[in-house]
């Protein structure tokens, strides 16, 4: 009897799975067009899955091994089951292979089950709690029905009762694994995930690459929407990416806004987007809610605005764009892109940037700096330093990009320290002076693509007038934007963070350094230097050169926790239960360090905002400048040519 029932069950489930797949594909196709190499992507997919994705998953050895066993066991079992039981190829060898595969899958499923016995809060419950049992049902049923094929048991063993029991087991297994895969069950992650890897919007990320710059909006195309208002305004492969989510909650565990009690949970956000693309409400979501927001009150569909239906605006503005979620995501989903896309709509179409957002954007347009300071005062911090201006020199080795920290008194100390280092190393450098404008980082992350492009194109025009070998900046945000986001507007430069450059100077022996004196030191990785640009080593190298042994925080390197200062978060200032910098300071205190080295004006400002007593905060440039040995400095040769500062007229 099983011999007639099994093929029917298998092919019925497969047929329904194909129908479900077509239905799902049509949902994704509601999204906007996107340039993707369809065939090339599919060909590259197995490698992306087995290498790139596995690298991320392998950070958690337990689940990596579990997944390898389960997934490999399942894929083999499914293929062999179709051959053996579907097409009736009752070959002993195939039978043994199928037995082996189902055992492998069963072992994997057991470990999935163990993980699910007492699941951490980041994992979604609901249908996901059923999955290990379904996996077991599938593997055990196919193991048992294959025993006769392998010749271990007689064909009619067990009689009618066992046959009926096994049919139910197979039905359960194939329903979850084949049918459920395309009709929205937990196994959807395998189907959507595979295609998501094939047609990822940042294919550069695979093979060890890095792609973190935001994608530009084409403002000349009047028909294109300015950002994302409705789910269908995402590109189709973004929608596909949302569908790939396994709800593992790694993003939730890494998200600083979630930890601070702000109404954001990256996992829930992605699931809300899935609700948006398929239509419905979030009532079925079985994970942690947005802090302070109840589940079941939001819903939407592809043609309905997202904000204030599916997601509240506050959720989108809570993000610090620290990319911790993207870094952790084993499915390589792009949360930050989606959030900025939706912010773009709010800012460019609705004029709804919260709190100080509107003021900052207006300031950027009218004064080229977010604080609204008189542009003529941009070089006041260096009034006594006689900095060479690029407009006088025309050509230089190092262009020192000062950044908007020039207006901030705390950051001016960092800038002056770095100038001291540059002078001590006798570097041929210059600054743009009053010609420099804000890089556009904040504007872009607040969703104001128009102002970003305005600032970027003007900066690129200015830079095109001069010749320089590299740009060095103390601000990781300017660094990231100049390096990764100006390229789309034909601004291609060699850009370095000052820690990287100082590491080079030290390597070359250009600096005569003493040792850091006194207190123990930890180092805080800025998101835009670390996760965005992969620079974890240079700052530590510089600190080592000062004789500092860094007391690493538990969350350091690619797992570094954001200071709370990115993505315009201090400007939009969404309330939570605690402040992100306070949590980061707690991380710092745990190391017992008396001083925290930083490499970013935002981090400096956020961490210094934590009430005393707390560890000291010093920029790497300050630490290096303090350790410079004066006696080795060259005989003082004052710069002969008086520098003509542009008249800083203030009206």
């Amino acid at each position: 009897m099983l011999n007639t029932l099994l093929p029917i069950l298998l092919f019925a489930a497969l047929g329904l799975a194909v129908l479900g797949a077509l239905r799902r594909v049509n949902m994704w196709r509601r999204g906007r067009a996107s340039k993707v190499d369809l065939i090339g992507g599919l060909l590259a997919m197995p490698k992306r899955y087995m290498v790139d994705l596995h690298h991320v998953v392998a950070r958690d050895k337990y689940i990596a091994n579990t997944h390898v066993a389960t997934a490999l066991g399942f894929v083999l079992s499914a293929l062999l089951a179709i051959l053996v039981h579907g097409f009736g190829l009752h070959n002993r060898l195939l039978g043994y292979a199928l037995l082996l595969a189902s055992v492998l899958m069963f072992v994997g499923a057991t470990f999935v089950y163990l993980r699910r016995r007492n699941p951490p809060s980041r994992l979604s419950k609901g249908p996901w709690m059923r999955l290990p049992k379904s996996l077991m049902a599938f593997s055990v049923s196919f193991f048992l029905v294959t025993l006769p094929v392998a010749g271990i048991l007689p064909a009619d063993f067990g009689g009618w009762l066992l046959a009926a029991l096994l049919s139910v087991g197979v039905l359960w297994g194939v329903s979850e694994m084949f049918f459920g895969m395309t009709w929205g069950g937990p196994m959807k992650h395998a189907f959507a995930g595979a295609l998501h890897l094939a047609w990822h919007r940042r294919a550069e990320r695979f093979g060890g690459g890095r792609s973190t710059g935001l994608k530009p909006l084409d403002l000349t195309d009047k028909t294109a929407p300015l950002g994302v208002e409705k789910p269908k305004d995402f590109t189709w492969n973004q929608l596909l990416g949302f569908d790939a989510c396994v709800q593992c909650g790694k993003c939730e565990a890494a998200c600083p806004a979630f930890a601070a009690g702000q109404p954001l949970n990256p996992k829930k956000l992605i699931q809300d987007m899935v609700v948006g693309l398929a239509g419905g409400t979030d009532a079925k979501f079985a994970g942690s809610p947005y802090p302070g927001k109840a589940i079941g009150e939001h819903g939407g569909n592809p043609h309905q605005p997202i904000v204030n239906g599916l997601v509240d605006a506050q959720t989108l503005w809570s993000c610090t764009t620290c990319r911790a979620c993207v870094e952790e995501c084993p499915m390589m989903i792009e949360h930050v892109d989606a959030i900025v896309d939706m912010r773009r709509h709010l800012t460019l179409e609705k004029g709804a940037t919260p709190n100080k957002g509107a003021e900052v954007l207006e300031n950027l347009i009218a004064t080229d700096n977010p604080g609204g300071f008189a542009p003529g005062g941009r070089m006041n911090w260096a009034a006594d330093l006689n900095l060479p201006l690029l407009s006088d020199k025309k050509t230089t080795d190092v262009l020192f990009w000062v950044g908007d920290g020039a207006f901030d008194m705390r950051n001016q100390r960092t800038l002056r320290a770095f100038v001291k280092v540059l002078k001590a190393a006798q570097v041929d450098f210059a600054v743009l002076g009053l010609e420099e404008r804000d890089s556009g980082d904040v504007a872009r992350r607040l969703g104001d693509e128009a102002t970003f492009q305005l600032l970027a194109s003007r900066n690129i025009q200015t830079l095109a007038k001069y010749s320089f070998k590299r740009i060095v900046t103390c601000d990781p945000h300017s660094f990231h934007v100049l390096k990764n986001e100006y390229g789309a507007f034909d601004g291609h430069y060699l850009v370095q963070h000052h820690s990287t450059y100082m590491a080079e100077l030290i390597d070359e022996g250009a600096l005569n350094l003493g040792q850091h004196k006194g207190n123990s030191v930890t180092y805080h990785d800025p998101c835009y230097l670390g996760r965005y640009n992969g620079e974890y080593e240079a700052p530590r190298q510089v600190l080592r050169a000062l004789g500092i042994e860094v007391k690493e925080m538990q969350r350091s390197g690619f797992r570094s926790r954001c200071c709370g200062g990115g993505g315009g978060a201090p400007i939009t200032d969404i309330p939570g239960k605690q402040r992100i910098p306070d949590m980061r300071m707690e991380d710092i205190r745990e190391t017992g360090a008396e001083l925290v080295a930083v490499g970013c004006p935002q981090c400096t400002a956020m961490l210094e905002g934590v009430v005393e007593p707390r560890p000291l905060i010093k920029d790497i440039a300050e630490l290096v400048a303090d350790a410079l040995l004066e006696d080795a400095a060259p005989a003082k040769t004052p710069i002969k040519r008086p520098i003509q500062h542009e008249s800083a007229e203030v009206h």
Partner: protein
Amino acid sequence: MTTNVISLVSIGAHPTSGRPRRAEQDARAVELGLQLAGDNLQVLHAGNIAEPTLRAYLGMGLEQLHVLEQPAGADALPVLGDYLRDAGAQVVLTGTQAETGEGSGMLPFLLAEQLGWPLIVGLAQVESIESGVAHVLQALPRGQRRRLKVRLPFLATVDNAAPKPRQSAYGPAQRGELTAHDVQVLEDELFTGAVLQPAKSRPKRLKVIKAKSGADRMKAATAKASGGGGQVLKGVSPEAGAEAILKLLIEEGVVR
């Protein structure tokens, strides 16, 4: 019945950079207008239609901005007056003082005089408009408000007591239309014939601190200005009133 509301806007200048922007007070006039009339608000500018800053007003969600095309140095007063009368305006809102050009703050007064309409200075809020009469709140120093009843049509200036203008968004700013109107150009001789020179900051009265205690200082800082030597003139003839004002101005050294 919807009220025909028109807001007048000019090109502003950012206080620190001097770069063109939407004028702060004019933007508030537009905001108040939008709150009053919604999509029926008309916004009017006299000047150069090619000025990109005008789009900053459109970005507040306006579909259209009417521009009475004029070169720099032309007198906006007569053309604005004609337009407002022809358009059947009932409430005209404007900033108190322009941020560029002459910036004398005289335009609303001259316009009201030309049209023969009442003028409210420092409008903070319109409470209601019913059967041709508006109940409005006028802003006075130190957060005080005065409730006024005024017959339509009227002209009102807004200052920083009026609601904060909404954010200007790029999308609507690009889509909004600038509608040009041909008008007769009259040179503003008072402006073009004058010589502009940088303003000197107004001399400040010496502040003699008499307060002995912190509480006194707090009181001095927050209490209502008590005009010690002031007097309230009631029921006097215009001539007597003018004489009293002139006497005060001479005393204060404003008129010599």
